[in-house]
């Protein structure tokens, strides 16, 4: 595959930047969410939605589309941002995150265009993706691929390995699992809480073709996903282990489990977003709703 043009690379970088910005915006405004795992997969989603995957925002259920099952559904802000940027719904929709009729805290496919499944509990998504991939084969649809985006911590779940075993058994080479290997779980490091290593060997032992990539390198991701989509399929499911940094892009959240689930105060979000814009060599830009934020909720004297 030819390398990306400078223009395309700039587009992908802008998408990754906006995915990060919008994730922080919606988590801050909702006063709830998971910044760490959203920031770590910004480049992965940018490349999938703006380079690798065929999707049509005007026809979200288009039969020939590529599917993305978000197994790590707590990182929904990044996916909501990518879908908004892609045009599945207006950008303003992100400020309905965690509202009763808005974007669900985890994922609700019945409410949001572009979502392919509903989720939240970890370890379930790969099974759903196996079902989709099997279904596509039954329908004799050779072009569509099913991507499943998994966290590293959720690889502790037995259900993932049931699904992995079955995907290889069914020879589902239209299935591509992407592991956002950011090394950090909710309460600490993966190696400390429950080690998943040797990870590459595990997937290979389960019968998968393995690709590894720097999950923040847009060119490497583009080449790897292109390979997984078009070149690699040979009767085995494909796993892309994307090595990433949790909380990537803002110093205080990088490699820090305390930002797994944590909504920043508006003033902190403002500083975080200013830092982010400086890192991307963009004009300094803070939190768009600073001073215009919602009041903290109180409920019969409590909160």
């Amino acid at each position: 595959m030819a390398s990306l043009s400078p223009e395309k690379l700039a587009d992908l970088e802008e998408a990754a930047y906006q995915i990060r910005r919008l994730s922080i915006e919606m988590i801050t405004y909702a006063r709830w969410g998971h910044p760490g795992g959203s920031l770590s997969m910004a480049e992965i989603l940018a490349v999938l939605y703006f380079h690798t995957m065929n999707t049509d925002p005007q026809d979200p259920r288009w039969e020939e589309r590529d599917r993305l099952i978000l197994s790590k559904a707590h990182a929904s802000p990044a996916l909501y941002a990518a879908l908004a940027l892609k045009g599945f719904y207006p950008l303003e929709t992100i400020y309905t995150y965690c509202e009763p009729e808005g974007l669900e805290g985890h994922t609700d496919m019945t409410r949001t265009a572009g979502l392919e499944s509903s989720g939240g509990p970890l370890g379930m998504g790969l099974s759903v993706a196996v079902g989709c991939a099997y279904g596509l084969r039954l329908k004799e649809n050779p072009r569509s691929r099913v991507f499943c985006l998994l966290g590293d911590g959720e690889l502790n779940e037995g259900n993932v390995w049931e699904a992995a075993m079955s995907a290889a058994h069914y020879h589902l080479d239209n299935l591509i699992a992407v592991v956002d290997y950011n090394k950090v779980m909710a309460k600490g490091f993966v190696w400390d809480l429950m080690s998943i290593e040797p990870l590459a060997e595990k997937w290979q032992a389960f019968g998968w073709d393995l690709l590894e990539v720097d999950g923040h390198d847009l060119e490497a991701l583009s080449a790897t996903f292109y390979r997984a989509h078009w070149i690699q399929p040979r009767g085995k499911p494909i796993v892309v282990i994307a090595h990433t940094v949790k909380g990537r892009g803002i110093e205080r959240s990088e490699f820090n489990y305390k930002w797994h689930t944590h909504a920043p105060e508006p003033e902190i979000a403002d500083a975080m977003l200013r830092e982010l814009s400086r890192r991307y060599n963009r004009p300094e830009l803070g939190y768009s709703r600073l001073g215009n934020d919602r009041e903290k909720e109180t409920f019969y004297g409590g909160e």
Partner: protein
Amino acid sequence: MAGNNPGSPSEMREAFGRTLVELGKDHSRMLVLDADLHTSSKAGYFKSAYPDRFIQVGIAEQNLFGVSAGLALEGFIPFPCTFAAFATRRALDQVAITICYPALNVKIPGSYAGLPTSRAGTSHNCIEDIAVMRALPNMRLADPGDNADLRAIMHAAVEVEGPVYFRVTRYTFPDLFGPDHTFQWGKGVIVRPGNDVSLFGTGMMTGMCMKAADLLEKEGIHAEVLHLASIKPIDKELIAGSTARTGCAVSAENASIIGGFGAAVAEVLTETVPVPLVRIGVRDRFVNSGSIGDLFRIHGMLPEDIAQAARSALTQKTRRMP
């Protein structure tokens, strides 16, 4: 086919397997998935008839339901087949979040539901599936009274869009209904009219209620027997209408009474016109290995127990309305 022919009783699982094949003929999008139990559940009949639409997932029930969700997303009608105990205990989170939450078109048979599991014992005697599945939003739930009822329920399951759980009991049912029997979601039927006490049955317990009504009749008590295969949605009008006439009731289920069918009847009665209700079913205990007769005796679920419950309900009615 023998399994669907009233008059020649066969095990309910036989009728289940044969009805899967029958449905598969008309519904090309129907798939059957199995977790290494197809000769027990009789889902294997579908495998023989339509090998390309049969998917073996191995002993992996969480994956069984997740894969079914994915297949439903692609427009198929999956029947993930396993024992009730594993569908509702092992894989509940998958059933709830990947299937019920987005209301996917998955039809879940709970094989070996309730007490008759051929002596398999506590781990396999699934008594909480009614309570658990009933609590899931979007889920429909039915417990058939005989093989004709099962067949009608399975047809109705495919005809309705969305998730369905239905019980398949490992028991050879005496026929309760004729060959023209139909089933409607949210509709129960009066199988024996009466005015003194309402006996609400579901699944195999409706047959037990009929035998209890015979016992009561000898004492001059005219029991009304109602079959409520559709547990969710439940037929509120039929329940409240019957007790408006009889003034007292018994519920009977092949399951735990906690949160189950009796609880569903109690919910209807307390929110309409409360009357005395005595519930027959497993009373907060695990169900050990044993013959079906021993188990029904130990857990107080025989026709004699139902008749005694009816007398108790009648006594309570009399005390309330002297």
